[in-house]
């Protein structure tokens, strides 16, 4: 085609579009919604990543971090660093804060950061009142707590609280800390001065001590040189981990990636469902232009050129919709920013990305072309000779070998584009495969409905007969209704089942088997007193108390495991940092041995290790393999003598590694305890802390309710977003009904002439809907049960149950909404005006 011709046909396309865009409004709407979601995901994801990258130093808290874990660190080495950089020392620990009012004192398990005057090196702490942060290091025994603690403990400024058994004055509240690093701040937190630390009894294990030194490079010397200097200074200190800004945000980035991965799949699902509607609406549009196209052919414009005009119209729509959708996505950024800044202290801004705009356009283009090929090809069916007979054949989708291959090729490009960009390409491919299998299944379901109903009209009432005829007629909207609504409902049901099962499994642990409290940091000399105090509080309390030390896995069979076990390994957490280990005389009831045998008591001087069987499998460890553990700075080699099945979900005391007591009992240790009370109301946390100030108390229900709360929010957000696929499905159905408009009007006219009442026609619409909907429910339920069961049992490794209540809510919600929409859309065809129709207007 020459440039002049293209320019001419572009003009025709533009003119045609501006005069008849209302006929393809549903294409515009569905395309806009689905491209908007995709744009929003890309825009927000980029803004978040940009914020994380630009502020990685702030999030880390420095240009570099020296992490000594639970050791104070080698001061001589730190002083060497101080000679060429600014160092801010921070010690984090967990402990209990309790109020000291006379009545109804409360406690809170809190993560406290003891900071020095240099904190923060980067970023800003948002706190009030002014000056309270500086006063932490000027006035002893002062503390700034986060807003949640302030609210839950009903505190006021200058109130006195107890941290362990020391009194602290609350001098402010903190809203946001800049150095949240790689994790969400999940629990409550507070700040205190570094000097204050010395007044507290901190034990290594119960307090989850962490010594960190944040470094800021000042001056003009090359940053890399300084980094190399620091690496050199600490090269022989095996206790140290050096963290850089680029790996400070790994946790958040992973969460963002996973979330946007999921949302991208939702958006592409919405686009593909919209594609079904696009094909249908476009066919109707071309059908209405039947005579115009015949005239164009009669005057000498060939099929190829006519098709070009229609493709150009689609291209024009897509171009403007992409721009509008992408532009609108910027409006979401301030909303997301408010939500994130409140929770995480991150501030995001929207910025224009040509890459993202191109992706939005390209995805839209691929979907439109894939679904419009068989539609636009129907133009070949129109003959100029029809003008002479005044008989215009109703057009159908036209498939040829070439067009099918082209559609499949473009579909493959779309799938690859999505999968390549996603953080979990394998899961994306599985998702696409499942999507198309579902689509095909629903298509055949609609065909099956039509086949079964076609010859079964006897013994039906008149409304039912009309409903059945509407379903089985050649231009029936049943296939579109079943496919689009079926897919949307399958997705929504799957998510609802996953969410409800997950929440149920988490919630059920509390009453059944989980203890009421965990107690950490019980010192050796406090053990007997502790048990006595608990028994006096509640003689029926079930106490489990085990010894605990911290041990790091230095070598497995003589090799550093960090050299061959990657951080994507499921059990990487075992070697990431030092782990708590314990020892018991007898096999724990809930940890049956799967391989090997229990302790060989004839060898008390040999370290024997009992290992979690899953960890063994993930690390490729067998019975007889040697582990070198570092305990209190000493390296000790032990042998794996058995593998246990460990279920961490029962919230009782579980350890990945157990040691033989004959060897381990002489190692200096603390105790960890769980208590399940019969009379929990007798237990007073504040009084307990007066006796055991260094012990930390974790109330299980508090943490599980926090987890459930977060999960609730996530699943609500996810469900709402997924509901967009149902909305798109409804728009598609509505457009299909409108497309049928002329047929419906004509049919209803005849019904009116024959004496049908409106009620009979409405009833037939309802029956038509019910027949389709019942089959949708059946197959959506089957697919969503399979998918959710797979996700819950294989990915989360929880138990799956069919949640009938959730099922009912979703079905009823979607069903009623769809029915209302169908009736509303059909209303305008219910009472056709006879006069204009009889006059052929």
């Amino acid at each position, binding site marked *: 085609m020459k440039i002049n011709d293209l320019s001419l046909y572009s003009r025709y396309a533009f003119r045609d579009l501006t005069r008849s865009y209302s006929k393809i409004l549903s294409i515009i709407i569905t395309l806009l919604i689905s491209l908007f979601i995709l744009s929003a995901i890309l825009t927000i994801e980029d803004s978040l990543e940009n914020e994380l990258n630009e502020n990685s130093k702030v999030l880390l808290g420095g240009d570099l971090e020296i992490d000594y874990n639970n050791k104070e660190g080698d001061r001589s080495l730190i002083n060497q660093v101080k000679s060429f950089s600014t160092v801010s020392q921070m010690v984090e620990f967990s402990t209990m804060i309790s109020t000291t009012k006379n009545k109804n004192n409360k406690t809170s398990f809190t993560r406290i950061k003891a900071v020095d005057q240099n904190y923060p090196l980067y970023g800003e702490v948002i706190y009030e009142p002014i000056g309270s942060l500086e006063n932490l290091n000027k006035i002893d025994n002062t503390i700034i707590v986060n807003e949640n603690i302030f609210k839950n403990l009903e505190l006021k400024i200058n109130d006195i609280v107890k941290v362990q058994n020391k009194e602290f004055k609350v001098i402010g509240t903190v809203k946001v800390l800049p150095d949240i690093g790689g994790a969400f701040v999940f629990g409550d937190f507070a700040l205190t001065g570094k000097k204050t630390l010395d007044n507290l009894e901190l034990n290594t294990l119960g307090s989850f001590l962490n010594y960190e030194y944040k470094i800021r490079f000042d001056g003009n010397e090359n940053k890399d040189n300084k980094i190399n200097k620091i690496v050199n200074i600490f090269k022989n200190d095996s206790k140290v981990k050096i963290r850089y800004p680029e790996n400070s945000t790994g946790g958040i980035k992973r969460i963002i990636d996973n979330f946007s991965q999921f949302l991208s799949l939702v958006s592409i699902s919405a686009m593909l469902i919209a594609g079904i509607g696009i094909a249908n609406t476009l066919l109707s549009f071309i059908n209405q232009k039947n005579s115009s196209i015949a005239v164009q052919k009669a005057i000498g414009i060939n099929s190829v050129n006519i098709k070009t005009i229609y493709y150009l119209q689609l291209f024009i729509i897509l171009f403007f919709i992409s721009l509008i959708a992408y532009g609108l996505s910027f409006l979401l950024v301030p909303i997301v920013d408010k939500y994130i800044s409140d929770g995480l202290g991150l501030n995001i801004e929207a910025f224009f990305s040509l890459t993202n705009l191109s992706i939005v356009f390209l995805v839209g283009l691929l979907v439109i072309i894939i679904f419009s090929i068989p539609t636009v090809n129907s133009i070949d069916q129109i003959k100029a000779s029809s003008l002479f007979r005044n008989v215009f054949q109703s057009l159908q989708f036209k498939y040829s070998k070439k067009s099918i291959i082209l559609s499949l090729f473009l579909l493959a490009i779309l799938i690859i584009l999505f999968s390549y960009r996603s953080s979990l390409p394998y899961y994306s491919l599985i998702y696409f495969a499942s999507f198309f299998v579902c689509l095909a299944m629903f298509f055949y379901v609609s065909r099956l409905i039509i086949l079964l109903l076609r010859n079964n009209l006897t013994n039906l009432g*008149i409304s039912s007969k009309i409903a059945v*005829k509407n379903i089985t*007629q050649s231009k029936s909207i049943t296939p579109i209704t079943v496919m689009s609504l079926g897919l949307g409902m399958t997705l929504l049901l799957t998510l609802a089942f996953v969410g409800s099962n997950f929440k149920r499994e988490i919630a059920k642990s509390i009453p059944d088997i989980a203890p009421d409290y965990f107690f950490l940091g019980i010192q050796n000399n406090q053990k007997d007193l502790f048990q006595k105090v608990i028994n006096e509080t509640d003689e029926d309390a079930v106490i489990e108390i085990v010894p605990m030390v911290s041990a790091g896995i230095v070598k497995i069979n003589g090799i550093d495991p960090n050299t061959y076990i990657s951080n994507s390994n499921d059990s990487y957490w075992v070697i990431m940092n030092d782990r708590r280990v314990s020892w018991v005389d007898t096999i724990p009831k809930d940890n049956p041995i799967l391989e090997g045998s229990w302790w060989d008591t004839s060898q008390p001087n040999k370290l024997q290790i009992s290992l979690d069987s899953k960890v063994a499998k993930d690390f490729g460890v067998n019975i007889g393999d040697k582990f070198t553990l570092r305990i209190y700075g000493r390296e000790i080699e032990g042998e794996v003598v058995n593998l246990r099945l460990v279920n961490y979900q029962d919230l009782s005391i579980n350890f990945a590694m157990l040691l033989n007591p004959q060897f381990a009992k002489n190692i200096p240790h603390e105790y960890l305890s769980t208590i399940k009370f019969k009379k929990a109301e007798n237990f007073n946390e504040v009084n307990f802390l007066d006796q055991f100030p260094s012990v930390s108390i974790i109330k299980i229900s508090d943490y599980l309710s926090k987890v459930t709360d977060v999960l609730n929010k996530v699943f609500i957000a996810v469900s709402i977003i997924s509901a967009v696929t149902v909305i798109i499905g409804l728009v598609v159905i509505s457009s299909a009904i409108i497309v049928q408009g002329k047929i419906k009007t004509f049919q209803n006219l005849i019904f*009116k*002439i024959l004496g049908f*009442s409106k009620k*009979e026609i409405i009833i037939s619409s309802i029956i038509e809907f019910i027949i389709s909907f019942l089959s949708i429910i059946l197959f959506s339920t089957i697919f969503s049960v399979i998918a959710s069961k797979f996700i819950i049992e294989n990915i989360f490794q929880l138990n799956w149950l069919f949640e009938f209540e959730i099922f009912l809510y979703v079905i009823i919600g979607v069903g009623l909404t769809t029915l209302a929409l169908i009736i509303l859309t059909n209303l305008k065809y219910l009472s056709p005006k006879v*006069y204009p129709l009889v*006059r052929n207007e």
Partner: protein
Amino acid sequence: MSKLLKLSNVNLNYTIDSKSINILKNISFDVDYKETISVVGESGSGKTSLIMLIGGLEKVSSGNIFFRDSELSKMNEDEISEIRRKNIGIVFQSFYLIPNYTALENVSLSLEINKFDNPTAKAKEILDRFGLSNRFNNFPSQLSGGEQQRVAIARSVAMKPEIILADEPTGNLDSENTHKISNLLFNYIEDENASLIMVTHDNNLANLTKRKITIKDGVISENK
């Protein structure tokens, strides 16, 4: 009242583009039982509008229409539908068959809504009577014009209505089919003692009726 149909000072106005157009003005006439009437006049004179009013498919702007003793002009749509269902058959120039129903289904539809026993058998009987016994399972697109109009007539007479309204029933047919259809229609009317009001441009057809009403500019100019 001994008349089947009575129109009294019937007016019909339409508002198009906010302009009021008088279609029919002060139309008054009666129709006896078993009477055949043709309505003639130029294009746009209001003939089709008159048929629509009598069939209850349009509402009068003023005046009264009585069908037996029931005043159609005061009834709601459901009540009129009930009357039309049982007592009035309508035949159009463009047939207006439901395109995705077979000939048999198009005819049995009017029997089924009236809860007729064994509507399929009755529909077959009627189609057979109209010479369409080999066309039961054909869709309208598979029938010739004449066959389609025969199906349309069969559908309109299925419930043995007291009055048949025909709007240019042979308007889209060739002369041979016109002859066949008119014979069919009038033979049926005679056999079943039904009344007929027929709009037509065809004088030969008009002459087959007992009375001729001429409408000019929305007014009856002749009634004899």
